[in-house]
């Protein structure tokens, strides 16, 4: 659509600008402010330069959380994107079952995140949970409060349960928007199912897949509530991801400076990776 130049449109954007500025700029300024100062209470602050940042980047605890976070996010993406895409491809495209599928699949997305944690907590209890008891009955030793592997398995399974539907719904929306003529032309051209997927569906789904990957990357990188309810970051700190680490530092430790520096680095990592991914996808497009 051709748009006209009109700077008075700012009046329409002003309410959004003010609300988001209030919510985003003031807190961010506070955080930046703390990150370069030191305090011993009494509202007295001293300039500390990049001390907190240097300290953070040398902090093993932070680096461990970051490493765990990267592994978690990568695992989740590797499972959810192909799984969501396959499920969407197998779904019926018309008929009464479409609505039923979509409604049931959206359900996990509307469960409060702490309830997701509680639900999987109950599910995974080794003595009375369906999953925990089931696995133990099969002879697989499972105890998510004691064994890191069990905890990781449960956390990842929980995230797959919680978020794969988002990928399914996005991909499904993309698939049904492909005109029938493409499928008919492919039939006439004698294309096998794989060729249909490779040359028709995948190219047309690129846009929604980009959105799906970006959303899943951002949200899994920020995961907090579900994990804190399910494992509390344990056993030990084996499922302590970045947000858990940060909240402990910010609310628990009164270490305003280090927590602020942590916040900034955390936010920047997400921005940088999202930007990198986005430009890579778009550069491919331009070629």
């Amino acid at each position, binding site marked *: 659509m051709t748009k006209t130049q009109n700077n008075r449109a700012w009046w*329409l954007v002003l309410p*959004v600008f003010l609300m988001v500025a209030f919510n*985003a700029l003031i807190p961010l300024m506070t955080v930046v402010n703390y990150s370069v100062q030191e305090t011993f209470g009494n509202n007295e602050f001293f300039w500390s330069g990049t001390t907190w940042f240097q300290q953070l980047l040398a902090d093993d605890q932070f680096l461990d959380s970051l490493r765990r976070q990267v592994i978690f996010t990568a695992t989740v993406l590797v499972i959810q994107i192909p799984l969501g895409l396959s*499920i969407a491809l*197998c779904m019926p495209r018309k008929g009464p079952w479409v609505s039923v599928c979509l409604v049931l699949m959206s359900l996990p997305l*509307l469960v*409060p995140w*702490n309830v997701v944690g*509680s639900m999987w907590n109950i599910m995974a209890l080794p*003595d009375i949970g369906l999953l925990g008891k089931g696995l133990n009955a099969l002879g697989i030793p499972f105890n998510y409060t004691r064994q890191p592997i069990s905890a990781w398995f449960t956390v990842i399974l929980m995230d797959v349960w919680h978020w794969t539907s988002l990928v399914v719904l996005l991909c499904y929306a993309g698939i049904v928007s492909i005109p029938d003529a493409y499928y008919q032309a492919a039939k006439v051209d004698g294309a096998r199912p794989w060729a249909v997927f490779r040359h028709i569906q995948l190219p047309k789904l690129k846009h929604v897949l980009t959105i799906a990957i970006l959303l899943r990357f951002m949200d899994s990188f920020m995961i907090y509530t579900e994990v804190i309810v399910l494992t509390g970051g344990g056993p030990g700190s084996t499922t302590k991801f970045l947000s858990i680490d940060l909240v402990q530092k910010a609310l628990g430790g009164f270490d305003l400076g280090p927590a602020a520096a942590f916040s900034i680095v955390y936010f920047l990592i997400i921005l940088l990776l999202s930007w990198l991914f986005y430009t890579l996808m778009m550069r491919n497009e331009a070629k």
Partner: protein
Amino acid sequence: MSKRYLVPLIYIIFLMLPIYWLLNMSFKTTNEILGGFTLYPREFTLASYQTILNDPTWYMAYVHSLVYVGLNTLFSVAVALPAAYAFSRYHFLGDKHLFFWLLSNRMAPPAVFVLPFVQLYSSVGLFDTHIAVALAHTLFNIPLAVWILEGFMSGVPKELDETAYVDGYSFPSFFVRIFLPTISAGIGVAAFFCFMFSWVEMLLAKNLTSVAAKPIVAAMTKTSSASGYELGLLAAAGVLTLIPGAIVIYFVRNYIAKGFALGRV
């Protein structure tokens, strides 16, 4: 039935298992829960639900949640509408930068904002109010609403606006009487997403409230640590949180596929 339908079928069964288990637990007596593993409630009881519905600290928590979620949806959609219109129709100074800045807020981890939000809302005297949580959630809901609505609005031809102006409508009356009804599906989808993200969020909601506006997500955490004794209660509270979501989904069931395409595939 084609073999490939087994894939979504198995997936849906997988999705339903934890929900079944939650229901199962919520209808059991504490004795049965502590007694051992049972696939279905042997002694069916509504005791856990009765506890919740008779205890104001429990049921008011639901009310608090619904209040701030409703307020948030209202705020977000109301301010996003004119902004999305501006982005879909006009070029203006700094429009692209503003749009990206808005979207970048969706990338901000709530954990980063907890502490500054508590300080900010305490300093303006809003701590422990519904408004505080509703406003805090607009941080990620406004960008989302603007983005969704912009997608839907771009699909409406500009000729609609021009015809209305030629017919003598002023901007406000055109916007309210002609434009809004045209994109009502988009508004529904945007409201659905705002509702959804505000309803499921816990970290900010819990830390911005203490007593007067304590939401259900916070009320539940007090029981989550105690294993066994209050598991039935926790499960029942969890089941009750599924209801608003299920109702909302039921209403938008015919728009889900289109809605998730956010009007722009």
